[in-house]
């Protein structure tokens, strides 16, 4: 029977059957892997037991990069080859990713959080809720300040929209504040956060959002 338990801090989901699964989607090059490289140490610092599944088109480039990073036990990084259609393996038929997650979970029984990086796609890509419990979409300032206005399903539907590469705004002639304002206005009351994955700025807030949403931190 479900009991009332006092949940104080992350990690708090011990005793539940499975690890939380979150997705990170967004266009190629927006900084998904760079953000994961920033998320790992902050999450680890909060005591979260985690693993990563990457999706690459035909290589295992991102997985290799994370394995070499020294940030995470290389055994905790798994690669799915997404083929030519990266959105298919996170939405229409996520079986490969589900299986990769299941393998990591059985290999690391204390696992609390599984991060799945999409292979990178257009603004229409979304995650299936069969695969993940919660997902964020990463766009970047250099991709153009008109991206929120294009109202892509990824931008509109994700649980958290991350606008990355804030450091580049002055160099690409983007007014960051108005880009964030537009992003918030197309998303109604769903959250938007700005990050600089180069410096780590804004990453704590992303970790707060993850911990609150799926690890049930206060």
């Amino acid at each position, binding site marked *: *029977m*479900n009991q009332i338990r006092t949940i104080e801090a992350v990690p708090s989901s011990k005793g539940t*059957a499975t690890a939380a699964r979150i997705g990170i989607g967004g266009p190629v090059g927006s900084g998904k892997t760079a953000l994961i490289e920033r998320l790992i140490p902050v999450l680890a610092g909060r005591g979260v037991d985690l693993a990563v599944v990457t999706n690459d088109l035909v290589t295992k480039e991102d997985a290799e990069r994370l394995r070499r990073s020294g940030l995470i036990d290389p055994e905790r990084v798994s690669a799915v080859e997404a083929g030519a259609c990266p959105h298919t393996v996170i939405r229409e038929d996520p079986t490969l990713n589900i299986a990769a997650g299941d393998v990591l979970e059985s290999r690391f029984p204390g696992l609390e959080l599984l991060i799945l990086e999409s292979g990178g796609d257009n603004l*229409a890509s979304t995650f299936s809720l069969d695969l993940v419990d919660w997902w964020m979409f990463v766009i970047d300032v250099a991709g153009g300040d008109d991206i929120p206005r294009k109202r892509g399903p990824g931008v509109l539907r994700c649980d958290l929209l991350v606008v990355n590469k804030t450091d580049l705004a002055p160099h690409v002639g983007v007014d960051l504040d108005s880009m964030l304002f537009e992003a918030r206005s197309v998303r109604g009351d769903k959250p938007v956060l700005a990050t600089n994955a180069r410096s780590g700025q804004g990453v704590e807030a992303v970790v707060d959002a993850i911990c609150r949403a799926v690890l049930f931190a206060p």
Partner: protein
Amino acid sequence: MRLIDRILGRRDDTEIAHRLHHLEHHHAVDILTIPSGDVARRRLRATTLGGEEVAVALPRDQTLFDGAVLVLDEAHALVVRVGEQHWLRLVARDKADALELGYHAGNLHWRVRFDGEALLVALDGPVDDYLVRLGALATEGRVSHSIVDPVQAH
């Protein structure tokens, strides 16, 4: 916060129905409303109709459903109510427009149902988000739209 890590049964299971009936007399059955677009989530936090904050973390082989019983004890029960699915009803002006509409709906991976000459699209967001994807078909009035009352759609 209450942590829910399994579904205990269905509202209409004989034994459960009996106990719920008894609790209802004591106004002790709380409701957790889940929007239809969120019903596949295994993990979420939410506030019940009675104002209690709950955290749901189900095993991967379980999903919430309308009537899922999450809490059941002597003094209290919590039952899931799935929000109504709203549908956008689209009707094309002629065959050529219908072909184009069908192409878009497939290309956009919309969840659809067919209703005679109309295409019903499951709404997971504001209607405008869908119409804008149809571009000229919508703006030129080649496809007309209306919202289907959830009750009628059954």
